[in-house]
């Protein structure tokens, strides 16, 4: 199978169940992420934990579930207190976990109907996932690390190397290609992880607290890469606790107890991200200004 380079274009080339193409009404093209009544629970009976979907309705006993639409090219920050279900949501969006109930359409494809092999293809070609704890493959040099998704995609060795080097150059690590994870700083490791996530040119970059383990300088480095990726048309969803990070997003979604309680747009989805619209003004603004602008209650 060919590598789905072109994000959305690849959606209809896949051999997945023929999903009726969503009608292109006044809302434009179908969203990259469409989540309907998503619910995730752990455990059974009294010990049930509702990680996602909110508390059950006292009358019917059913949870409302999470609904979320993310347009192509958007940059969404998911915020919320610890345990509010952010990671749970992100893992489902990244096809790493399956929801208890509800529908998840990725690029118009119902992910629930895919088998194990098709899911691995989706993870490989459509999604780039960045973890808080980097999650690099141990004992593997940066270059091989970044080549790995391409190897799984069946790209030829020479082409693979060329693209991995380009991705590493993009994150500013061209001089660290032979370093193993234990020979890299946290910020460098995360940049390798970002390079690995974007090397297959996925339509969507998902990041679960990508800067959670980094200092402010490394945070800025990683975020500027993410900003540039988004400016080049890639959809980005990231989880963060920090307003400083959320400031970079075009849209901020707040979760409380597994439910979306606030959804604030900071910039239009089809423009450049806030940090690149007017860099001088963006840099001048203090984090406090964001708190007022976002209307958040943190």
């Amino acid at each position, binding site marked *: 199978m060919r590598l789905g380079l072109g994000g959305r274009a690849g959606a209809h080339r896949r051999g997945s169940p023929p999903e009726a193409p969503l009608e292109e009404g006044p809302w434009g093209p179908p969203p990259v992420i469409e989540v309907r009544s998503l619910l995730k629970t752990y455990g059974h009976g009294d010990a049930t934990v509702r990680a996602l979907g909110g508390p059950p309705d006292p009358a019917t006993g059913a949870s409302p579930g999470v609904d979320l639409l993310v347009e192509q090219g958007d940059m969404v920050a998911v915020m919320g207190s610890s345990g509010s279900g952010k990671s749970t949501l992100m893992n489902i969006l990244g096809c790493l976990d399956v929801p208890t109930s509800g529908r998840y359409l990725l690029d118009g494809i119902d992910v629930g109907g895919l088998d194990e092999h098709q899911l691995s293809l*989706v993870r490989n070609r459509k999604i780039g*996932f960045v*973890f808080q704890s980097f999650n690099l493959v141990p004992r593997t040099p940066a270059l091989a690390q970044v080549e790995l*998704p391409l190897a799984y995609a*069946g790209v030829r060795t020479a082409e693979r190397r060329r693209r991995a080097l380009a991705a590493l150059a993009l994150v500013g690590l061209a001089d660290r290609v032979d370093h193993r994870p234990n020979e890299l700083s946290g910020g460098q490791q995360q940049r390798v992880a970002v390079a690995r996530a974007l090397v297959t040119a996925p339509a969507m970059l998902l990041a679960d607290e990508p800067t959670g383990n980094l200092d402010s300088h490394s945070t800025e480095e990683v975020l500027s890469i993410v900003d540039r990726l988004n400016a080049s048309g890639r959809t980005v969803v990231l989880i963060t606790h920090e307003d400083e990070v959320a400031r970079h997003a075009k849209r901020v979604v707040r979760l409380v107890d597994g439910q979306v309680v606030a959804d604030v747009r900071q910039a239009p989805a089809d423009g450049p991200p806030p940090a690149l619209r007017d860099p001088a003004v963006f840099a001048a603004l203090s984090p406090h200004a964001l708190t007022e602008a976002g209307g958040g209650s943190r």
Partner: protein
Amino acid sequence: MNPFETLRFAVGGLSANKVRSALTMLGVLIGVAAVIILLAVGNGSSQSVKDSIEKLGTNSLTISSGSGGAFGGGRSTSGSTGTKPLTVDDARALADPASAPDVKSVAPEVSTSQTAIYQGASHTVSQVVGTYPAYFEASNSKVDKGDYFSADDVLNSRKVAVIGSTTATDLFGTVSPVGRKVVIGGTPFTVVGVLATKGGTGFQDPDDTVIAPLPTVQNAFTGFGPVSQILVEAKSADATTPAQNEITTVLMGTHGIKDANSLDFRVSSQESLLSTQSDTNKTFTVLLGAVAAISLLVGGIGITNIMLVTVTERTREIGIRKAIGAPKGVILGQFLAESTLLSLIGGGLGVVAGLIGSHFRIVGIKPVVIPASVWGAFAIAVAIGLFFGSYPANRAASLRPIEALRHE
């Protein structure tokens, strides 16, 4: 992912934990080497028994007087008309190629026990045999020093003797006996040859013997009566059965016996002895093989154990690989390749160790490698790697990415 890459990943995985991989391989190595060596020892011991029986001469048949027999004879009916002894004439009749075409040579023999004296040294020889020169070949007795006595010596009843190695050392010590005179039972004999040491495990030392021309011994000790037995050599090992039949027919003629169930002589071959021996050996080999198979199995369990540990230890890594899009088949392939590589290298080294090990004598037995055991042990080791590796590999590959990532 091409196979070469899978292999590279597998090598990388194995070399990440060199000591552990080496110890696992050692388990397989020992298993395979044990199978090869132990089976070679079993095979070697049966081979050596076969050789020593063949040394006695599988072609030779012994005819002795008496009813019944190992072959062709039944119980004599009661009230038989008396047993006719074996005579030199019987031997002559057997030597006739017209009536017994499968018989190569015939040697009638008389035996007695006598005291031999040489320069004051006295020694009781348990077997003083009087016979024809054909005896030497039929009984596989080879002269080490000097020479055999000849047909001419027999015709002229010369007082010459060939002596066994035990007799030689007992009487002569380090002196070469050839050409010296020894007094046996009061008759002086000239020693013309000394037999090569046969070595034996029986009650009787086969090297304590004196072999002299038949008429000489008859004249000096036994008298010209019946012979004690006749040694016959068949043309080949395959010809022993027809030779036995011919002997029976000829002797029934000379002894005037009509009923094949009331024979007064017995024809026995080495074959019966051989088959009992090889049965014992088969049991021995099977037992050794079982021990070896168990050690191979233990090696296989070692692989499973290590693969389980490896998979558990690397569950997070599996999660990472799956999160960036590794298909199940690739993960499965990687771990299967690792376990197969372990067993392949371990098995290969085991074959080398087994082949080297079977060059040495083990408890006095020269091992003889069975080629099938080499291939068999190697193939089983690789199959064990595949089979026992597939369980942990499958478990690893079936994990959901998030389960694997959360694994601690």
